[in-house]
């Protein structure tokens, strides 16, 4: 309910202006023990003179691409490491543009190297990210009076960190303006404490688990076992 109230208020303020702008219903996602992914609504206003492309790009980090190769009867992995690959990538456009159309926009290709049609490896990486719901292409839904919106899911396997959101205004395959916002993904509460304890206080981490293991197995042994 709160989500839709924010969107409604945003649309009310936008109806006075003539430019293009966008917003998200939230700019921070907290990963807690019950985290199953989170739906986000992206919305805004689009001027009729230009096209819109919104790109969400997660933190660039090292990845390992595992390709299954059949050796006689066994399927084994052939692994290759790559650096500077975004851990999350999403593309929204209005009107809807195919990946081939996006490849024609030089500025976008330059800023987001994952969007390259020249590399077979990058194609494989995009496909592998897609399998993990960490890559998708979606169209923005056009509403009344140049308004647009779309819903998307941040999956449960997302890494914590920042996701940069680029808002491109494009005319004739040329970027005329760009706006940038940030979506924060944070581990919170027990999840954050557990991770911190593992890396910063490993001895306490082991001690708690070992103590729990001994106590619980003794307790179940004495209470449930046949006398």
């Amino acid at each position, binding site marked *: 309910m709160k989500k839709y109230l924010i969107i409604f208020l945003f649309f009310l303020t936008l109806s006075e202006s003539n430019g293009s702008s966008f917003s998200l219903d939230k700019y921070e996602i907290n990963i807690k023990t019950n985290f199953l992914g989170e739906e986000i609504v992206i919305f805004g206003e689009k001027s009729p003179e230009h096209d819109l492309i919104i790109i969400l790009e997660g933190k660039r980090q090292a*990845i*390992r691409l595992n390709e299954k190769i059949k050796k006689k009867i066994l399927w084994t992995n052939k692994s290759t490491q790559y650096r500077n690959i975004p851990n999350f990538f999403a593309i929204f456009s209005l009107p809807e543009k195919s990946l081939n159309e996006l490849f024609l926009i030089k500025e976008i290709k330059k800023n987001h190297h994952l969007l390259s049609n020249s590399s077979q490896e990058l194609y494989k990486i995009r496909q592998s990210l897609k399998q993990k719901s960490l890559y998708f292409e979606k169209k923005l839904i056009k509403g009344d009076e140049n308004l647009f919106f779309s819903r998307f899911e941040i999956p449960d396997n997302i*890494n914590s960190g920042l996701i940069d959101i680029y808002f491109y205004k494009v005319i004739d395959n040329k970027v005329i303006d760009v706006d940038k916002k940030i979506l924060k993904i944070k581990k919170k509460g027990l999840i954050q404490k557990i991770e911190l304890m593992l890396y910063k206080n490993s001895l306490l981490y082991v001690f708690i688990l*070992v103590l729990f293991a001994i106590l619980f197995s003794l307790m179940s042994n004495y209470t449930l076992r046949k006398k």
Partner: protein
Amino acid sequence: MNVYLPIAEISINIYLLLTLGLSIGFLSGLFGIGGGFIASPLLILAGVPATIAVGTTTIQVFASSSTGAINHLQKKNVDFQMVTILIIGGFIGTLIGVYTLKAVNSSGLVENYLYIFYATILSLTALFILSESAKENAKKRKGKFKLHDHSWIHGLPLKIKFRKSKLYISIFAPLIIGFFIGILTGFTGIGGGFILVPCMIYILGMKTVSVIGTSLFNITIVSLISVFLQVFINHNLDFILAIILIVSSSLGAAIASRFIEKIKVDVLKVAFGFLILIIASLLIYELVRTPIYLQTIDIL
């Protein structure tokens, strides 16, 4: 209902994990094993990353073996001379196993190696148990029964007397066995009871009465060492997954204790052999079947 695993960084169905834990505990209680060789591959098959499955299984093995070890300690069924040597070998082996896991993981081939390793070791053990059971039955029928045959291991130097087990063998024999079990624990998360017990009976020639206590005590200490090493070196022990596994497998083991007396030992041995064979077959199938995805990605 799903639960988020903070170190594995995935959410997974809690009922699936509880069912897995209960089944692992039930089987380990029924067959008197730690259950690591079932837990580790099943967790990987359920979608838990391989290294996290291995690391977290070690605490489950520790939990399931520690109660039994305490019971046998109270009954004085532990050969401390033997277990000290096994643990020394086990410590060195575990250290090598944990570092091997780290190296294999960074090469991206951890699932391949683990599946091949599990499938080989489980198939060999199953065949060994089934053939030994068949041999014992044949010998019993003929009326002559000998616990073990003398092999090359009895010719090793540095022999000492193991008073509790009434053995006079080289310290290298338990040291080598402990070392290999340690590698297994460190690299695969398996406690190794299903290999250690037959080795103690058929190779070392130990008495059955002290075999179980000594084996459980060794598994408890070696898995504890492995827990420390996995956390400090590989950071691959998931707290939430560990708690779920400890709770469900302890309950499963306790439930199994109500059934165990109703089943004959011979039947139990054969069933155990077949169970290992089934798990090995599942792993072999995973290696030969065409994968759903020909490319996967690991974010490092």
